[in-house]
């Protein structure tokens, strides 16, 4: 049974979350893009802002529609909150005899309530869960952050120029992974409940049930976002891409894309499912201690494939091939899913506008565009 949260009640939501001990994060305009930052008042939301996205291009514009979530997405999904860009893993002390004491450094901070995650972001979180939580080994740091996160998703009512979640079947409407899911309609939000935590939260706000008109309006908003997407992933991101890629490792397109690719790693850094990281060491100056930390790495770096004096992927061609064959291909072997959720971030935030759907289309011999259905 969906509820209705009026605009005037949004601050009650923030207050309730804060009272429950959460640090509230929500979308805000900062330096020309939409990012998640501390949210204490609904006025901080990006009212009326809309993003124009093209390959290598992102601009915010004020739209006529004075809504808080009239945009598609910003440069980062939920990933930086769960799989942190830099995080210390353990510390070691050395005693006077030279023996070591190791201690795991788990995070210590308030739980986070994130408002404004998109359907593609939740799909990506489910994929990272598979990598870091659900395999043979559990990542204790990721688990800590994951257990201390409450997600209030907001369904998209608009799609950016690089969005293709319809093709990847990961949006624009969130279907799981949230505590609450909001859809912005006239004067407020239709709220769907995703967990017991979400339910008790919404009950504490004394929200009314959403009327049939509001619910229909919400449905229409999601459909509108879906229908405006023009980009698609060839084979609709299916497992078929795996064999297509692995059978085309000598395709001339790899060399062509390597001529444009800067091998800078931006695509992997904004990708909400990329998990590569490298480990670094921060010894103290006195020589008695050291911190072992990790930070985001990328398959576009030399260090990623360096092994005693050799670099397995010494050229951009090999690195781009690694990225695409893994993301859209062998990810299926490892995690029984594609590594792509159709958010389009790697296309937008590539400094030279390389579009993975276009590269995949060239290799698959298929189109990466679809007709607008309305």
């Amino acid at each position, binding site marked *: 049974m969906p509820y209705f949260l009026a605009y005037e009640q949004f601050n009650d939501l923030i207050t309730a979350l804060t009272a429950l001990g959460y640090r509230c994060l929500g979308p805000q305009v900062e330096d020309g893009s939409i990012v998640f930052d501390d949210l204490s008042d609904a006025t901080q939301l990006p009212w009326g802002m809309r993003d124009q996205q093209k390959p290598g291009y992102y601009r915010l514009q004020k739209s006529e529609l004075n809504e808080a979530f009239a945009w598609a997405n910003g440069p980062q999904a939920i990933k930086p909150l769960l799989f942190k860009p830099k995080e210390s893993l353990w510390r*070691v002390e050395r005693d006077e005899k030279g023996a070591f004491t190791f201690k795991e450094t788990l995070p210590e901070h308030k739980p986070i309530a994130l408002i404004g995650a998109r359907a593609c972001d939740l799909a990506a979180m489910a994929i990272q869960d598979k990598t870091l939580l659900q395999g043979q080994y559990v990542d204790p740091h990721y688990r800590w952050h994951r257990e201390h996160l409450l997600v209030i998703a907001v369904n998209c009512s608009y799609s950016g120029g690089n969005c293709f979640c319809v093709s990847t079947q990961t949006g624009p409407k969130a279907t799981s992974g949230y505590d609450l899911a909001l859809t912005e309609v006239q004067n407020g939000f239709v709220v769907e409940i995703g967990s017991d935590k979400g339910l008790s939260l919404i009950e504490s706000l004394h929200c009314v049930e959403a009327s049939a008109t509001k619910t229909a309006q919400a449905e229409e908003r999601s459909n509108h976002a879906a229908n405006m997407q023009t980009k698609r992933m060839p084979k609709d991101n299916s497992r078929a891409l795996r064999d297509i890629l692995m059978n085309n490792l000598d395709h001339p397109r790899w060399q062509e894309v390597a001529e444009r690719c800067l091998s800078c790693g931006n695509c992997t850094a904004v990708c909400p499912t990329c998990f590569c990281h490298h*480990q670094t060491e921060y010894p103290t100056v006195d020589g008695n201690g050291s911190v072992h930390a990790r930070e985001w790495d990328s398959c576009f770096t030399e260090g990623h494939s360096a092994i005693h004096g050799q670099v397995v992927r010494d050229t951009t061609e090999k690195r781009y091939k690694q990225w695409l064959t893994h993301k859209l291909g062998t990810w299926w072997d490892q995690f029984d899913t594609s590594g792509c959720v159709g958010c389009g971030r790697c296309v937008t935030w590539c400094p030279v506008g390389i579009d993975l759907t276009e590269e995949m289309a060239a290799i698959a011999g298929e189109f990466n565009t679809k007709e607008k259905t309305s």
Partner: protein
Amino acid sequence: MNAIDTPVNTKIVARSEEASDIFTLTLQFTEDQKQGYTFFPGQFNMLYLFGVGEVPISILSHGDGDTLYAHTIRRVGRVTQGMSLLQVGDHIGLRGPFGRGWPLPLAQGKDVLIITGGLGCAPSVSIIHHILKHRVAFGRLFILQGVKHSDDLIFQKQYQQWAALPNVQVALAADSSKPNWPGHTGLITELLEQINLDINNTLCMMCGPEGMMRASVQRLTQLNFPEDAIYLSLERNMECAVGHCGHCQFGGDFICKEGPVFPYPQVKALLNKKGF
């Protein structure tokens, strides 16, 4: 403490020099940290040099109740460079064991053919120890080792000892050699002519440079040796050892987790592809 997530403290109890840039460190767990530690031949540990970082090193000693764990290390990077300077009594952090080892249960009752090159012999020493300790469970043992130059051969004494045992045949090859080299001068694949292989009742395990392994697989398949009886140990950049950091991803596998030992058919498609 969970030795997967965080290292435990070990002490160097022996150190030996195998070659100018190869050394062996024997480590002993301090306190009661060895509890629950067992490994299978072919698995590896992450060894930690204080203030510098970790490296994956395969475990030499056999795993049956041993309390000492030998690791043969080549000085190639910054961590191994620093480790080469450590002495008996110094400490090293250890995380492990990791990965999937050699398929010893499958080898029971069969002949075992071990093909190694360069420092590749190190991960195989644990298999040899295991087979020799459980001698009746296995058939004949062939040990083929190739090196670039005869001077590069390490564990020379051990090869002599093994060669003297019944039902063990050791054959050495060097691409180039000094005078009085007792082995073959030429390619390791040529050693396959010198042994009397029972192709239907042998399990082959190989490790070493990939070019050497590819050539050996090629020669074996020419001899009608079944592909699924060939196992090889692969190496890539490994930092976390638990399939999370992504560096050792090889097609649909993480070498640290699904490997480092693979049945040949599982890695066949990408083994010849540059960049994987």
